[in-house]
């Protein structure tokens, strides 16, 4: 499966691409879990992700 084209996304100043990718993976995992369990509503998921990003980004 090709991943060509992903390099098009410019990494903005102050963003660590590795950390961002790790964070993206955690976000997707969280979404995957929630899709199976349906535990959190949309707004709860938004709050969860916002907290996750805030604690990960220093």
């Amino acid at each position, binding site marked *: *499966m*090709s*991943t*060509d*084209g*992903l390099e*098009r*996304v410019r*990494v*903005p*100043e*102050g*963003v660590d*691409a590795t*950390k*961002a*990718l790790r*964070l*993206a*993976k955690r*976000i*997707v*995992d969280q*979404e*995957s*879990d*929630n*899709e*199976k*369990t*349906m*535990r959190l509503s*949309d*707004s709860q*998921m*938004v*709050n969860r*992700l*916002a907290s996750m*990003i*805030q604690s*990960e*980004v*220093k």
Partner: protein
Amino acid sequence: MKLLSITVADFLPFQGEQTVNFATDEQRNVTIIMGDNGAGKTSLAQAFEWCLYGRNPKGIKQVINAYQRDRIPSGQSREVKVEIVLVKDGIRYRIVRKQQYSRSMSGGRVRSEPSKLSIFYRVDGETYGVADDPRELRETIGKLLSEELSRYFFFDGEHVKSMRDEIEHGKSQDFANAVKAILGLSPIASAIKHLKGSSVRGAGRTTVQRNLTESLNLTGNEVLNKKRARIEANEQRIVRLEEEISGLDAEISDATELTEKWSQLLRENQASEEAQRAVERAQRDVKSAETALRSKRDQFFQAFKSGMFRFTIEKPVKMAMELMKDVDASSKGVPNINDVTIKYLLERHECICGTHFEVGDSIDEHLHELLKYVPPKDLGTYMSEFEKECRVRTESPEDLEEVIGDAYAGYRDAGRALDSARDELEIAEKHRDSIKHANVRVLRENLAKAERAKMNALKKQAINKNDISKANKENKQLRDEIGKAEFQDEKNRHIQRCLAYVNYIYEYLSDFYTVHETAVRNELADVVNRFFTDMYDGELYLTLDKNYGVNVKVHGVDEGDEDWQTSSGQTLAIILAFILGILDVAKTTSKEGTGLIQGDTYPLVMDAPLSDFDTTRIGTICNLLPKVAEQIVIIIKDTDGDLAIDHLSDSIGSRYTIRRIKDYDSKIERE
């Protein structure tokens, strides 16, 4: 995920506890369960759904074995149980659903309690239980295999029918989402939606971006700087006020010394002070006497002023009245006769008695004399009026001389009192001056001045201290606010950094999703077509639309938007090809390098999947299934089963037969 076993106890046709252990070997991953019609094959397939999701088979209210149910004694109960053991991500789970059926004491109908789910899992040799909470249990089941996805992997005739409708006609967003969930695309779409909103899943009202942006506090630095300037000004003011307080301390000290000094001097000059007090008393008496004199003088002048006219005329009037006393002022006229009457008689030359007279005679003269005494020229009247006027002017209930005399006496006495007070003052002053001590008055003025100075200084000090307290309090509050603002400032920078990450991750995932969703869909279309072609060679081919709906086409024929009509065998082949395609692609995506796409693989539990195929295609399908799916459970009737066994012999790891002993009594036997 792999199934290890299923145990049924008094479930539908199965009496007592019976277990199927599934093949889990990678090479021999097929479990075949065969049985005649009515033996209980479909019931076994339905046991999966009842255990995992508590879903009763369609049209069946009680899942208890009817034979056992009918033999529950009055007042007693019996339990139905299905237990599934599986392994997922290296963790072994035991899922148990039980349901109690009871007959009342009166021997009436058997009633069921709600079924009860329990989940146990084993990690590092230790067994744990999921909390007995419906939400926790539902979440755990969802993580293992959500109900939404289950119909793709646990399907019987009913599922096949509904899937055919969905694949051929539905093409709904829900269907697309379910497929994306299996392929591992769905979580990425949800992440994109939650981060900033997207056209993939619709823009939510709340997003992470909005959430973070709303937590920014954009209060400007200008306000912060104003607060800092205010603190500085307050601090300068506090320094100035403290200096003033210090200066006032000196003033208070000086004033205190002076107060003590003047007080001491006053004590030392007590006689002088008393003499001074006598002088001051005498001075006050003189002032009072002067005031009284002015008042008496005014009273005297007022008395004279009000009687001045009478005082002036009284004497000549009285003299005139004395002169008039002897004058006969009685009237010589004739009563009720006036000058008109007399003049008429004079003009007529005839008296009222009828006597005729001439001008110059005695009657004429008499009448002329009479004119002097008849009205209007009546002397008596004049005198009478004059006398009356004199009486009015000179007669009064008050004695004018007495009134004026009394007023004058008051005035005179006041003058004497003043003279006396002045004499007293002179004596007091002479006495005071004879003592020749310090000027007590000056001493007292100095003492009062010193006391005032001390009081003012103390008052000013108190005001300054209060101002300092207020300024300190304000500064503390301002510092707290600045502290919060600075914290907020740091927080804002942090949020801005987070937003930069949100934007980047959003862009990255959006790009990733666009590229991979198309790639996955194209790959799925290729794989589905490959499997379909393997199962059903001919002119038909399949295409996938954007919602993963399957369109059946014929090579070389352009029928527009119309789908090609398919037979039941072709339809089943399409469904199988589609499911196998999903499993195959999910297997690939689960190995994706970034780990963002995580397709899940599940066992395929199929109830009578081959009944609509001919022998050739059964062979093809049997060759295909174990290669694509990681674990296959085929529940099949005997006639198809024998054929399947021939083709699957190298892949079968476990084989069972369900035998119908009698109604409501089927046995699962391992071959």
